[in-house]
């Protein structure tokens, strides 16, 4: 919250000439790009998410259970890793173009990855699991009676699907889209490698391309304002559209067994989506890693980067949980005005894209304790501002599930509040806190923009190495750290999925 204040001050007190220049040259284009990118991704996400969720929940075919969890694996690939594999796949004379030319004639060309279409494709493949996951659980808990009523009153399958089923799961779809769009708007990694100008990327460019950060602060302010509007819009929308199960007559959907032809069609479709979003990129990474390893490019330096990433992420995760405990406690047990203010303040980190978080922390540190600049603490602080909300959310919901009666019982038996907290509350919520720790750890491992901007000398993280090598198109050199991040992230994604199912 405090860092954000510094950005605001710096933007508001900026020379009007800077504002005018930005409004006339940059802002309209950035608005257009960011919004059209989000919309493009949203449309593809809807199509992919709904169709996949429908196939998985309504049909039983060989392997459908395996597909169920394979389809969320794309979440484990950081956007910049997917982007860099696609710059390779889509480049002129690249693999995909050759394959395409055998079909469509030798003159046929593919679209460039460095374009609107390229950015939409990469980010859609990276984010469709958000919509898929939420659509899937909505379809699973769906009351089929509604559909049956529609069918008996004469609606055919297609009308039923579009007039009854889809509107009923609308809240889930919107929640999924909201997540995806927030991700797209705050993404730095993919758009920077694909050089597609969005707000988040422009903030970074202004920070690194100009000699003062005022213009970056101005753009950040516009971006954060938009994010807040979006955030409240979503809340408002969600409150308006709530559907309740009112009667007791509830029937779960039963998956239809499908014949060999449908099975084949479904499997090819799933294979296509999964291959594009996960299979192919990971295969490439494995292949490049093998090449790099056999060429001796995986040196002792690589393990240094691993250590930098792991230690820093571990430290941040621990700090986030330690900071989160009092905040989550305040939010759940002591609802006071000041408490709510603190907690909501911490949540503002959610709408801060990486470069903005970095800029904010930079502004704060340079105004207060400039001695810290260039040390690891600044980077840690930026991570914390950025990822505390994620930790907080998990911890808050865990604490909420714990009835205060237990604590009250302990208190009535004469235990003081601190002791109660450590002996009663903490052991009971350990699991939730641990998953919050893991979540922050993984987010930090993937974090790119703040690491790029604030890392101390000799402290390149894995993400930074991937980005530096990938922007030089040294595919093999970027592969080992990329593969490592994916491998570390997969179990966490599966863990979250399992929690989601229970």
């Amino acid at each position, binding site marked *: 919250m405090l860092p954000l204040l510094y950005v605001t001050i710096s933007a508001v007190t900026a020379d009007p000439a800077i504002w005018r220049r930005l409004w006339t040259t940059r802002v309209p284009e950035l608005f257009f790009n960011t919004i059209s990118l989000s919309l493009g991704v949203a449309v593809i996400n809807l199509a992919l998410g709904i169709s996949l969720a429908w196939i998985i929940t309504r049909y039983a075919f060989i392997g459908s259970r395996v597909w169920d969890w394979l389809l969320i694996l794309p979440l484990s690939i950081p956007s910049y890793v997917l982007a860099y594999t696609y710059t390779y796949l889509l480049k002129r004379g690249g693999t995909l173009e050759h394959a395409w030319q055998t079909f469509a004639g030798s003159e046929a060309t593919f679209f460039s990855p460095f374009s609107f279409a390229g950015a939409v494709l990469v980010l859609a493949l990276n984010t469709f699991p958000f919509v898929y996951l939420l659509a899937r659980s909505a379809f699973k808990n769906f009351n089929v009676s509604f559909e049956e009523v529609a069918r008996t009153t004469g609606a055919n399958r297609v009308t039923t699907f579009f007039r009854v089923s889809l509107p009923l799961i609308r809240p889930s779809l919107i929640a999924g889209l909201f997540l995806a769009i927030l991700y797209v708007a705050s993404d730095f990694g993919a758009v920077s490698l694909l050089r597609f100008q969005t707000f988040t990327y422009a903030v970074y460019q202004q920070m690194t*391309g100009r000699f003062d950060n005022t213009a970056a602060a101005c753009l950040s302010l516009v971006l954060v304002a938009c994010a807040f509007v979006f955030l409240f819009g979503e809340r408002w929308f969600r409150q308006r559209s709530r559907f309740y199960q009112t009667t007791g007559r509830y029937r779960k959907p039963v998956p239809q067994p499908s014949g060999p032809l449908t099975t084949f069609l479904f499997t090819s479709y799933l294979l296509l989506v999964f291959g594009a979003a996960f299979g192919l990129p990971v295969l490439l990474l494995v292949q490049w890693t093998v090449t790099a390893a056999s060429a001796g490019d995986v040196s002792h330096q690589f393990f240094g980067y691993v250590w930098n990433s792991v230690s820093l992420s571990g430290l941040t995760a621990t700090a986030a949980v330690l900071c989160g405990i009092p905040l989550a406690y305040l939010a759940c047990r002591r609802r006071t005005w000041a408490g709510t203010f603190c907690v909501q303040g911490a949540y503002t980190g959610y709408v801060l894209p990486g470069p903005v978080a970095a800029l904010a922390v930079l502004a704060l540190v340079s105004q207060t304790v400039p001695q810290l600049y260039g040390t690891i603490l600044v980077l840690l602080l930026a991570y914390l501002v950025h990822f505390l909300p994620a930790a907080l959310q998990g911890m808050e919901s865990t604490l909420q599930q714990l009835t205060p009666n237990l604590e009250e019982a302990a208190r009535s038996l004469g235990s003081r509040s601190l002791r109660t907290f450590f002996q009663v509350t903490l052991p009971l919520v350990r699991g939730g806190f641990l998953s919050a720790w893991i979540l922050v750890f993984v987010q930090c491992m993937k974090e790119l923009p703040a690491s790029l901007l604030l890392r101390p*000398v000799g402290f390149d993280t894995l993400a930074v190495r991937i980005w530096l090598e990938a922007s030089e198109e040294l595919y093999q050199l970027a592969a080992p750290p990329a593969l490592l991040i994916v491998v570390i992230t997969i179990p966490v994604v599966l863990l979250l999925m399992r929690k989601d199912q229970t």
Partner: protein
Amino acid sequence: MQRAFFLSFVVVATLSLPSWGYADDTLVVYSGRAERLIQPALDAFQAESGIRVQMLTADSTALINRLRMEGARTPADVLITNDAGTLERARELQLLQPTAIPDLEETIPSRFRAPDNSWIGLSGRIWVIVYNTTMVNPGDISSILDLANPGWKGKIAIPSAGSIYLQTGVSVIRALKGDEITAGFLRGLKDNARAFVYGKNRQIVAAVARGEVAAGLVNHYYINRHLAKHPSAPIAPLLTDQGDQDMGVVLNAAGAGITAHTKRLTQARALIRFLISPKGQRTFADVNKEYPLNSHVKAAPELLPLQSFQVASVPLSRLAQLRDLTMTVIEDVGLR
């Protein structure tokens, strides 16, 4: 539980402390150059002197911002960038100190140094047209400004607006031809290049070699690097604006300077001396195919000698003051 967190915190913190500091005898270099263009030289220096070098790679401008914020606390000893304009800006901001090296005057010509030797040019590159030899008759182009003619529509590739080479080129053209002509030139480039806007010189050279476009604007050494890998590629460099009244080609230099607050002056000086010595210069000449700026070191044999063509008369040290307005001109035209 709490103890477990605390323990992990302490363990991680203590274990990682050594890797976070840098030993006192390690020289810290802030580098705005692509790592593969500077690492060979630093490796050679490390091997010869035994001084360890730690490098931080980032955008040149970002490094200046960083040096400014760090002030006297900066860990950096040497600043290396790919653009003399940025170095001159660093000098104006008093982030660098004059380097006293014997024989400097005889080694590096004065036009490749700051007036007070706060920064010293290491290697030069010229901005040329790369053309596909099967598609273009080199006699048709005499000036770089010709690429803005409507006849080139859809046939040229240009660098993106963030490219420091484009910014340098535009600064020089502005200084010699004025803003009006420069803006017209950029508008023409934008129309002609359409989607062929690349962030990397290498991509432009590759696009020309494949015949997707007929010509492109690049730094000369990317052509030689491509030819070294693919000797039969149908590409060649074209030096423009060589007539008596013409402006000459745009030349920029990568250079280095010692930071104002270095605590390892002797080692920093040793690095600069190495980089301008014949041995250091050869890494730029042979590996990178750049022009060594040490006048006693010859360029790679496949390059035209630096003395054999006309170079635009804008001093490198003026690039800094031209830069800000150049950015505005580029943004106004709407190059991306």
